[in-house]
């Protein structure tokens, strides 16, 4: 189902998640040949709006949904195509994801884990209202699914990151996997700069952007549950490590999350740079930690307190 046929299995495993398409990510993540797509491209469930703007549509509206197996275990999966319209939430792409989540909520015969491969800057401006509605409905559907005992695991590592509605969506999930290239936030860097000025936040300063919203920072402050290498094998390993019985989703969970966030705010709120943040967390040499390779960083992250918790 993918165009990776000219590579060997080993080179497929080490293929970059960041550079891959949504379909390639699903193929690389899930057990070979196990993925069955719902509403495949041949059904042509496309955006009814883009032609108005003289924009090309995609056969899957940039959202691939279906079921497969991860390390032998059945899972449902949804992947956003970050290269198509920035992976944005819109009428059709949103509806596909909502449908998947509601099916997980309602049908006990379906797998009890949903993998959410996020790669999105938020809402598609050309379909603004539908997109906003979709985000709201997705978040509600995730909460309802979690209440029904379904684990929803976000995987963040694409070019668009998970901003806006995608950032909110990620925060609603039970677990988050992130790679160094991944970013998680709400307001996008350019919007912060436009609203607060370049002295406050220079969106062209990539080191700053990644230092604040990127995977390594998120892992260190406890904003993600697993750190993945930027490869198919890396994400697979991280996702597998998070499989298992999901924690109960109840008032206690939410209160623990609020406490965790308040404590984080107290501990780190005064930091004015990523280096200060990391130093406060006890990272001995923030500059070196930023440049070190993934294996070394993963080992370092394991030594930093507060990265693992069960609140979300």
């Amino acid at each position: 189902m993918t165009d990776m046929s000219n590579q060997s299995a080993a080179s497929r495993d080490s293929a970059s998640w960041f550079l891959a398409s949504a379909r390639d990510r699903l193929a690389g993540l899930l057990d070979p040949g196990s993925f069955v797509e719902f509403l495949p491209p041949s059904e042509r469930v496309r955006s009814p709006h883009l032609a108005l703007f003289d924009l090309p549509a995609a056969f899957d509206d940039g959202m691939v949904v279906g079921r497969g197996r991860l390390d032998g275990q059945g899972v449902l999966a949804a992947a956003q195509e970050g290269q198509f319209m920035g992976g944005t939430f819109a009428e059709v792409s949103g509806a596909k994801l909502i449908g998947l989540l509601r099916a997980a909520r309602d049908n006990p015969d379906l797998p009890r884990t949903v993998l959410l491969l996020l790669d999105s800057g938020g809402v598609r401006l050309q379909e603004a209202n539908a997109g906003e509605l979709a985000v709201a409905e997705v978040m509600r559907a995730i909460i309802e699914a979690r209440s029904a005992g379904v684990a929803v695991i976000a995987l963040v590592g694409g070019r668009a990151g998970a901003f806006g509605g995608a950032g909110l969506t990620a925060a609603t999930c039970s677990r988050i996997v992130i790679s160094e290239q991944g970013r998680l936030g709400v307001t996008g860097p350019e919007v912060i700069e436009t609203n607060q000025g370049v002295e406050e936040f220079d969106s062209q300063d990539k080191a700053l952007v990644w230092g604040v919203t990127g995977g390594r920072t998120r892992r260190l402050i406890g904003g993600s549950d697993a750190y993945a290498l930027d490869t198919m094998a890396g994400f697979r390993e991280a996702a597998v490590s998070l499989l298992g019985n999901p924690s109960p989703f109840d008032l206690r969970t939410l209160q623990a999350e609020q406490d965790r966030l308040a404590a984080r705010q107290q501990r780190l709120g005064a930091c004015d740079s990523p280096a200060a943040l990391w130093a406060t967390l006890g990272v001995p040499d923030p500059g070196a930690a930023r440049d070190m390779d993934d294996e070394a960083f993963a080992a370092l992250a394991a030594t930093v307190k507060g990265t693992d918790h069960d609140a979300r």
Partner: protein
Amino acid sequence: MVTITLRYTTRGPASGHAPSAIVGVVASGNLEVLLERALPDTVCAVEIATPVRGYDEVWQAVVADFVERTSPGGLHISINDGGARPDTVALRLMQGIRMMEAGR
């Protein structure tokens, strides 16, 4: 949006058994190609949706060469173009037919 529809008679059918395949992404400089085994053995139909005007002849030339080279009979090929260069189009078509020939 510009839509271009092309129809060919081929020497024979595309090999393989995959019912459909999709390759590429709709993005700037890229395109998505959906191939479906849905037509008689010696018929190939290609539908292109593109926001770029004025390149009809180039599309015809690229697709004609592809059809001549690979004899993709039986295939209905649908393209969503994001403004790709002709060599990228040719590449995706070749990737697509490879997937169709390889699939189960």
